[in-house]
């Protein structure tokens, strides 16, 4: 039997293409247009060429917020991925506790981002918050509104609390997909717990962990709401990540050209890393 190719089926994709055009491509084109012009409002624009890109790329402020963004992403990936795998390994593989664990793990993911920021803001207040008051009572000086280290500690802790569950759920799904025969074979061979993890569980989780790292990279690299509600980018600029700096430039200072150029550079960086992860994932599939 020969296969029938019907290219008219592509017309079924048209509604999706239109939707993507309206919610992604046209806004992105508009941002590109803004990034080469100056405006003082009233829909009046003056062509500036690549001046905003030069300004952004040579600006210390941009370099600093980019560095903070990469530092934050690096820290949370280093914590969340191993911690998520460790928690997934301790979760039961069968029985009634599976559902309990899964629901408990999913809870932080269900809370809206601004609510997470507000929760941690209240909890970290040095005079009345459980975390802030508790740390100060233990003799650890802690004030996230004044000390950059405390602010970073709180933002990282908040993100770890909010998003480690995602890594746990993905890693757990990867673990559940391993057939029992692998464990039985390892047992017959007298493999240690570490060997089972190193040679069976970790390779089998490879794919889901790549997805977890990709998702956590993209989310943390574009993080805005939680640190904005918690610290507002402060104290000073200590927790002003790239997205917060972008909003400050666009809405706070009404530098639409600079903000648009920053947006494009930001977008290209996210696109590059996503492509690298996509390539790694598809290479894994081929192998």
């Amino acid at each position, binding site marked *: 039997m020969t296969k029938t190719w019907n290219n008219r089926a592509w017309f079924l994709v048209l509604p999706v293409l239109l939707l993507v055009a309206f919610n992604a491509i046209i806004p992105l084109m508009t941002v*590109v247009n803004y990034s080469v*012009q100056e405006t003082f409002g009233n829909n009046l*624009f003056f062509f500036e060429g*690549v001046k905003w*890109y030069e300004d952004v790329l*040579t600006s210390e402020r941009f370099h600093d917020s980019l560095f903070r963004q990469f530092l934050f992403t690096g820290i949370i990936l280093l914590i969340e991925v191993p911690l998520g795998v460790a928690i997934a390994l301790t979760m039961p593989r069968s029985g009634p506790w599976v559902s309990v664990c899964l629901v408990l793990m999913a809870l932080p993911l269900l809370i809206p981002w601004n609510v997470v920021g507000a929760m941690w803001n209240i909890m970290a207040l040095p005079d009345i918050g459980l975390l802030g008051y508790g740390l100060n009572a233990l003799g650890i000086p802690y004030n996230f509104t004044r000390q950059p280290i405390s602010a970073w500690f709180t933002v990282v802790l908040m993100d770890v609390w909010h998003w480690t569950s995602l890594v746990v759920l993905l890693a757990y799904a990867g673990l559940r997909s391993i057939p029992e025969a692998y464990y039985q074979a390892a047992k017959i061979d007298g493999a240690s717990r570490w060997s089972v993890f190193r040679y069976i569980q970790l390779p089998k989780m490879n794919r889901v962990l790549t997805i977890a790292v990709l998702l956590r990279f993209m989310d943390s690299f574009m993080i805005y709401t939680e640190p904005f509600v918690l610290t507002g980018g402060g104290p000073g600029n200590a927790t002003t990540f790239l997205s917060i700096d972008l909003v400050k430039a666009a809405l706070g200072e009404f530098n639409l050209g600079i903000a648009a150029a920053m947006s494009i550079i930001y977008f290209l960086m996210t696109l590059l890393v996503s492509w690298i992860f996509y390539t790694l994932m598809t290479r894994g599939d081929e192998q």
Partner: protein
Amino acid sequence: MAHWLDLTWMAWTWQTATFFLVIFALLCAMTIWEWASPGGGPRHGILGLDTTRGDRLFISLLGSAFIHLGWLGLTDMPLWGGTILSLICAYAVFRWV
């Protein structure tokens, strides 16, 4: 409604319009190429990646964007230099990657 339709809110300039038209023309050219020679021309290139023509165009475009950004951020020379370098890189990508 008329203002929305005339697209002035998108703040068009002829330079950005040309840029997008070139991208659009490239996509059309790739479609015609695929129609004339179906299959995407898959290949295992020097980077160890399995790529199709579409992948190579994507790598070329993304690479060009970063070459231009690097050119702007690291040199004071005219941007045409970055464009020429991007074209050379795109040729290399289509030839060997």
